[in-house]
């Protein structure tokens, strides 16, 4: 990559203070959302109508590339790539815990043969599993033999499954041809900086061409290789998602420039994730007290970048051996021991029939949300607020408050309901009874929301939520999320207009760090 391009990009993009970011948001009308259609044209929420057909075909059943698809389709990762060729200050390769959901963490390493069998076993059990990703736990391209062997085996045995790869990008330019020939049409590159001075604060070293490089030199090589790899992939029509870790005080403002740089090189989707840095993880950032962003900061940055490129907001920062719907890890059902004992019968027809049913439900959901919109659009109001939803997928409000492991957050305005993120929580009700302490953490996690939509909720959490100014809404149990949220918002606006209630802004919410109590 030529360095002048880098300089240009940096000169063009001036650093934006968080304060300024907020201001920009205030003016930002949510990219192309029009009152009439009410469908946001931006983000990974992009719908069929907004994308060229060939791209829509690639993303429509991919839970990470399409926010809407993630309610219906699942992915899995296989941990065949343990080695890494660089070190990041937010990663600790020594740590492995079954109760933990975060990148780089796995319970078992697999051989390519074991991995292929696992894919078939999972695909036969979970027919909505459409995507196989290899994401480490090290770097897939630092383990090219195992990675590509696994893809080859799976492509042969289960040709309908989409292949997906996630890399730090250091070795990417060397493998682009192989990636293209294996028809891997989704690649994620983690890019945290385009300025080596910033990179030097994130990466202590890289191993490249048989040498260990450190500091600015290491970051320069890494950055050039990442951007070169990205350009090579997009030229071949391979969809690229860029992951960036938001590290307050180090690259948070800089990510606006990163966003511009990747956009200009054809990236399809940008996923800005919060830094996970609890001291008990033993990472450099965890130990030196580097904090992660709060949810408002994260959303502010995502909102600013949204004008530039599609933003992913539903990433769960999954384990490198995660299985199932995003946010609902079923990995424990598929340990190597269990898989090897399984008699796998890969039934393509059964999978297709199941997926056809999913498509029916999906179409019904989209139609339902559209019904509610025209009336809402006619209401003139500048009110924007967040609501939380307890869901187990399929785009429905179908989870008990006490069983929710996470809440999905939607921003409501007269242009409709827009997904803006999710909040991970511990179960309120574990072992059959509610736990007061968990309840207050849940409230802290969704404290910026005006309401929480649930399938069911007990009396005690209900009154506590009300005390915290969050309205528990059971009225729409088992109905479609967007349609219900819009209907609720309409009645909210009516009440504000009639003076029955007074609209107030909500407070700050905490982003849940690190450990998630396992579902088992």
């Amino acid at each position, binding site marked *: 990559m030529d360095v002048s391009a880098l300089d240009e990009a940096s000169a063009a993009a001036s650093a934006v203070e968080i304060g300024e970011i907020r201001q920009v948001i205030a003016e930002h009308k949510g990219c192309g959302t029009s009152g009439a259609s009410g469908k946001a044209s931006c983000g990974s929420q992009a719908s069929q109508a907004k994308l060229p057909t060939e791209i829509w075909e690639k993303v429509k059943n991919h839970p990470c590339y399409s926010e809407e698809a993630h309610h219906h389709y699942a992915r899995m990762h296989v941990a065949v790539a*343990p*080695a890494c060729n660089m070190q990041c200050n937010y990663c600790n390769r020594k740590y492995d815990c079954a109760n933990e959901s975060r990148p780089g963490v796995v319970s078992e*390493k697999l051989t390519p043969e074991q991995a292929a069998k696992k894919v078939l076993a999972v695909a036969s059990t979970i027919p909505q599993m459409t995507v196989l990703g290899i994401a480490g736990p090290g770097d897939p391209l*630092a383990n090219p033999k195992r990675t590509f062997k696994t893809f080859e085996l799976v492509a042969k045995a289960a040709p309908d499954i989409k292949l997906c790869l996630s890399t730090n990008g250091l070795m990417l330019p060397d493998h682009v041809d192989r990636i293209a020939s294996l028809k891997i049409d989704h690649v994620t590159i983690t890019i945290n900086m385009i300025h080596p001075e910033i990179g030097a604060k994130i990466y202590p070293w890289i*191993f490249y061409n*048989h*040498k260990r490089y450190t500091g600015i030199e290491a970051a320069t090589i890494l950055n050039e290789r990442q951007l070169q790899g990205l350009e090579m992939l997009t030229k071949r029509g391979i969809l690229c998602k860029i992951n960036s870790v938001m590290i307050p005080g180090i690259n948070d403002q800089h990510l606006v420039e990163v966003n511009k740089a990747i956009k200009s090189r054809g990236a399809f989707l940008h996923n800005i994730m919060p830094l996970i840095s609890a001291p008990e993880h033993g990472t450099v950032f965890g130990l030196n007290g580097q904090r992660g962003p709060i949810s408002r900061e994260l959303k502010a940055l995502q909102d600013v970048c949204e004008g530039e490129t599609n933003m992913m907001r539903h990433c769960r920062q999954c384990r490198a051996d995660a299985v199932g719907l995003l946010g609902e890890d079923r990995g424990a059902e598929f340990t190597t021991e269990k898989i090897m004992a399984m008699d796998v019968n890969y039934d393509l027809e059964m999978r297709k029939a199941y997926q056809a049913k999913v498509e029916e439900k999906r179409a019904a959901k989209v139609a339902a949300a559209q019904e509610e919109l025209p009336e809402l659009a006619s209401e003139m109001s500048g009110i924007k607020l967040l609501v939380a939803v307890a869901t187990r997928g399929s785009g429905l409000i179908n989870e008990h408050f006490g069983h929710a492991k996470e809440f999905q957050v939607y921003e409501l305005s007269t242009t409709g309901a827009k997904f803006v993120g999710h909040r991970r929580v511990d179960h309120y009700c574990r072992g059959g009874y509610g736990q007061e302490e968990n309840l207050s953490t849940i409230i802290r996690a969704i404290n910026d929301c005006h309401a929480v939509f649930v399938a069911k909720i007990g009396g005690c959490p209900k009154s506590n939520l009300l005390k915290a100014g969050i309205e528990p809404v059971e009225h729409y149990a088992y109905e479609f999320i967007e349609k219900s949220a819009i209907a609720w918002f309409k009645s909210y606006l009516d009440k504000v207009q009639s003076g029955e209630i007074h609209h107030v802004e909500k407070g700050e919410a905490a982003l849940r760090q690190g450990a998630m109590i396992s579902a088992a």
Partner: protein
Amino acid sequence: MPFKIIASQCTSCSACEPECPNVAISEKGGAFVIDPKKCTECIGHFDEPQCVAVCPVDNTCVVDTSLPRYQAPA
């Protein structure tokens, strides 16, 4: 003196295995070990011992002082 791997520190990430120019590194019961007879300290191949350079855990691939130094072929 060939290199050895301090087993208690090795995370068995396998990063070192494919880097060794002499195929001296292998996995034994979940941990990685160096065959001292095959290790040439990377002399003649690279500027630095590859296992040391790629290992993510500092001071895990170290010189085994109990054995004599490798003699580079003349």
